[in-house]
C-alpha cells in the first residue's frame, strides 16, 4: 500500500467494536494496537508513539473527553478521532475545543472512518516539515 505503515491506537471498551476496527484498519494496511480502556491506552502510549488515536467517548473509568487533554499534552503529534453516540452535540463541541481532529457519530460507515482518518493524517502530514 501507498501508506507507509501509519500507526493507530484504537481505544474502545466494546470488544466487538474493537475487533471490527482492528480488522478494517489492518486490512487498510495500518499498524493497529488496541486498548480496552484509559489505563491500557496510557500504557500503550507510554510504550510507543502513534500517528492517530481512535477513541470512544463513553467508557468505564475516565471518558474519552477526560483523556483527550492529557493525550494532546503527552503526545502532541498524535491526532485524535473521538467516537460517540449519534446526536451528542455538546460532546462534539467539547471534543473540538479540546483538540480532537475529527469526530465520528456511532453508527458510522467504514467509508466515513476511512475519510476521517485520511483527513486527520493528511492535515498532519502537511503541517509537518
Amino acid at each position, binding site marked *: 500500500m501507498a501508506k507507509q505503515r501509519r500507526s493507530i491506537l484504537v481505544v*474502545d471498551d*466494546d470488544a466487538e467494536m474493537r475487533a471490527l476496527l482492528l480488522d478494517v484498519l489492518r486490512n487498510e494496511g495500518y499498524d493497529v494496537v488496541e486498548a480496552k480502556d484509559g489505563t491500557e491506552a496510557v500504557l500503550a502510549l507510554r510504550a510507543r508513539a502513534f500517528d492517530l488515536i481512535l477513541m470512544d467517548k463513553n467508557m468505564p473509568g475516565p471518558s474519552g473527553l477526560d483523556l483527550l487533554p492529557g493525550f494532546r499534552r503527552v503526545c502532541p503529534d498524535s491526532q485524535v478521532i473521538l467516537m460517540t*453516540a449519534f446526536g451528542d452535540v455538546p460532546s462534539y463541541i467539547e471534543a473540538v475545543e479540546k483538540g480532537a481532529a475529527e469526530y465520528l457519530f456511532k453508527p458510522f460507515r467504514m467509508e466515513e472512518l476511512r475519510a476521517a482518518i485520511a483527513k486527520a493524517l493528511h492535515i498532519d502530514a502537511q503541517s509537518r516539515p
Partner: protein
Amino acid sequence: MRGQWLRAIGNRLRHNLTTRLIILLVLALMVITGINDYTRLVHEREQLVAQTQKDERIFAETLALAVRYNLRRGRTTEELEGLLEEIVARPGLAAVVIYNPDAGVVARTLASGTEAPTPDDLVRRSLTQREAVSAMADSPSGRILRYVQPFRWPGGRTAAIEVQQTLREMENQFRRAVRTTIISRLLVLGLFVLSIVVLTRWSIARPIRALVAAARAVGHGDLGQRIAVPRQDEIGELAAEFNRMAENLQTANAELVRQAEERLRLEQEVQQTQKLATVGMLAAEVAHEIGTPLNVISGRAEVLDRVVPRDHPDRRNLDVILSQAERIKGIIRSLLDYTRPRRPTLRPEPILPIIGRVASLLMERSQRRGVRLHLEMPIGLPSVMADPEHLQQVFLNLVLNALDATEKGGAVRITAGPDPELPSEGRGSILRGKADTATLAVHVIDEGKGLSAEELNHAFEPFFSTKGRGQGTGLGLPIAEEIVRAHRGEIEMLSIQGRGTEVIVRIPVADGEPLAPQPAKEEVSKDGR
C-alpha cells in the same frame, strides 16, 4: 284565584321598590291631609254651631223685645200665639215658648214633629238669675240648641222666652262639607298617585329596569353590555358610571383572559419541551446503547460487501443486512431529530424576565404545597448569552426540585450573586460543565433534607432521583446540565445534610458586558477541578 292575586300583589310589594315607595308616600299623604282635613272640619263645625247660636240669640232677643212690646200693649196670649205661628215658619226653628215669671207656659208654637218643651232647670235658672242661658239637648229629631232669653214682664217681674233650633240643617251642611272634602281629597290623591306612578315609571322605574337588566347581563358575563344615556340627571350619571364600570370590567377581564391564555400557552410549551426533553433523553440513551452494536453489524457487513462478489448466491442476504442497518440508523436519527431540543440560539437576554416567568408559573404550586417562594434578584444584573426558553426550562426543573424537597412551611429562594449562600462547613458539592468566561450566577436554595456525598455524586446521572418512586423522572438535572453546557455555562450543586441544597447556575454574560475580574475567573476554574 283571589289568593294568587293577593300573593302577586304581595310579591310586587316585596320586590318592587317603586310600588313600595308610592304606597308609603300615599299613606303618608293620606295621614297628613286626613289630620288637616279633620281639624279643619272640626273647626268649621264649631264655627257653624257658634254661628247658629249667635243667630238664635239675636232672634231670641228680638223676639223678647217684640213680645214685651206686645204684652205692654195688652195683647192676649192667643194673639201672642198667632204671632209665634208666623215666626215658626223660620227654617230650622223647632219651638218657641213664652214663660210667665212663674215658669208657666203663656204661649208656644211648635214645628211639626217636635215634642212640647216643658219648663225645666234651664228655664228656672234664667228666670231667677235674669240672664240668658243656652244649652244643647238631644231630642228624637236630632240635636237641638236651646236658648232662653229673660225679659221684663208687665209688673216688673222677669219672664222668659225659649227658642229651640234644630241643628239638622247645620248637620246636613256639615255632612255635605265632609263629603265634598273626602271626594276632592280622594280625587287629588288619585291624581297624585297616577302622576307619581307615571312619573316613576318613566323617569325611574324604566331606566332602573334597564340598569338592572344590564347589570344582570354583565353579571352573567356579557361584559359588552352598555346602557344608552340620554339624560343629565342622577340616573344618567348612574348609567354613565355603570357603563364605565362595565368598560373597566371588560378591559380587566380581557387582560385576565389574555394572561390566562398566555399562562396556559407557556405551561403547555414548558410541558411540551419537558416531554420532548424526557423522550429525547431516553432516545439518546437508546441511541448510545444501540450505536456500538449497530456499528459492529453494519461495519462487518461493509467488510463483507467489499469481498463478496456481485453475483454471489448469498449477495442478497448481505444487501438486506446492510439496508436494514441503515434503516435502524435512520429511525434513531429521526427519533433524535424529533425529540432533541434544538440547539439553543444564544443572544443577549436579561435574566430577570426568565426567572420571573418561572416564579409566576410555580407560584400556585408553591402555595398549594405551603412552601414560600422568594425571588430576591438584585436589579441591574448584566444580560446573559442565552436562549430564554431553554434557560427557563433549567430554572423550572431546579425550582421544581427545590419545591419538592422543601417541607410545608419552608421556603425556596432564588438569588443572584458570585458566592454560594450555604456555608462551607459540612458542605458537599458537585460541579458539571465549565465556564471559561465571565458568568452571572443564579442560585436556587431550598430548605430540604440535603443530599449525602453519595447522592450528590449521582445527582446529575439520568434516572437518578431522591424523590419517591414515581414522583420524579430523574431527568430534571441531566436536562438542566445539558442545557447549561450548551450555553457554555456550568451548574454546581452544594448541599448540607439536614440544612438544604443550593444549585448555582453560571451563564456567560453577554458580549460587551463588563468581564468579571481575573481572581473570580480563577476561582471558577479552581472549583471546576
